[in-house]
């Protein structure tokens, strides 16, 4: 009984230690599962993104989550801020700097969708052949899904 009690204490300690070590190493804020809090953070980020006036601003857009990750260089290192992507509101509530970046992301995304639609539609109506790439044969089903979801 004593041995299993000691084992349990040590096991619990090790698990907690691992979580602590991960936290300290990655400086990760343990995720707040509240969606409302997350949206509040995104809104605040868009109001005060801390973006520099000049310099490279690289972005990654996740259309499914509706968020844009903006990376910029400041104080000798890259920093990333997460912004909400709400073009239907004209990015209301966002700073001018954030709106500029989000408009760039929107233009880039719209172009991607438009050009990909043209490509996949041509494949589906037979005016363009489905080509293999690096020995990999594509799947027509993917073209059908893309056109169904994105192309009017």
């Amino acid at each position, binding site marked *: 009984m004593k041995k299993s*009690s*000691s084992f349990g*204490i*040590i096991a619990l*300690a*090790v698990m*907690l*230690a*691992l979580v*602590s*070590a*991960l936290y*300290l*190493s*990655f400086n990760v804020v343990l995720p707040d599962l509240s969606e409302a809090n997350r949206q509040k953070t995104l809104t605040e980020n868009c109001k005060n993104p801390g973006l520099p006036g*000049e*310099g*490279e*601003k*690289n*972005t*990654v*857009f*996740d*259309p*499914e*989550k509706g968020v844009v*990750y903006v*990376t910029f*260089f400041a*104080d*000798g*290192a*890259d920093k*990333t801020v997460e912004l909400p992507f709400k073009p239907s509101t004209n990015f209301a509530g966002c700073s001018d700097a954030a709106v*500029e970046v989000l408009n*760039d992301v929107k233009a*880039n*995304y719209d*172009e*991607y969708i438009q*050009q*990909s639609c043209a*490509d*996949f539609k041509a*494949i589906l109506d037979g005016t363009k052949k489905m*080509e293999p*790439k*690096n020995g*990999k*044969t*594509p*799947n027509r*089903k*993917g*073209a059908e*899904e*893309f056109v169904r*979801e*994105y192309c009017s």
Partner: protein
Amino acid sequence: MKKFLRFLSAYGAATIVGLLFLLPVVAVQANHYKGTYPNEGLLFMSAAQNYSGAVYVASNNCNSDETGAYALIQASTDNTTQMARWNNGINMVQYNCSGTWSNMVDLRILYQTNHPTGAWGENHSVLAPSSFCTYWNTSYPCGMRPTVHINRTTWNGISSANSRRRLIMHETGHSHGLNHHCTADSIMNNGLSNCNSGRWTQVMSYQATDRTGVNSVYP
């Protein structure tokens, strides 16, 4: 009390050990990774496509400095210790000169006259939709669809071919999943004086640290 002390000592020891193992890993990641994005890099660089390394590029201004940059990238990533999984390194191929997306294109380079921020270049990626992953017979998420924006005004003002090639190598490095890197010579230095003392101008190929970074992006 004894139980508490036992707990405290086990917790303390395990935390220290955990930190000793994790901190170096995180330090490497922090230098090379792009960050906590959904899914980094390019499908045809990944395990899903057997690390083929073939990257098809659409550019709206095909030029010899682009292809010169691709040659430098391949030469400095082929047959290397850090990128042993890629049989031919990173093999970038000019696919079209309209700069238009298609299912075959992995990366797009667009030269823009009125570049919004004045930066020499930027990288804007979209997470590939699940239907694109289905098209190439793999599961979602399956990588990014990146566009490199090159400031055309700046480009036209750069007289040195090496500088233009270095810019292409740097910006396409972001497309491959790399962040800026400032603690050693790297194609991902950004040229500023507070990033590796501006030594970016001395770098004309992927360095060991860049190759380590690429290897880390594609598990």
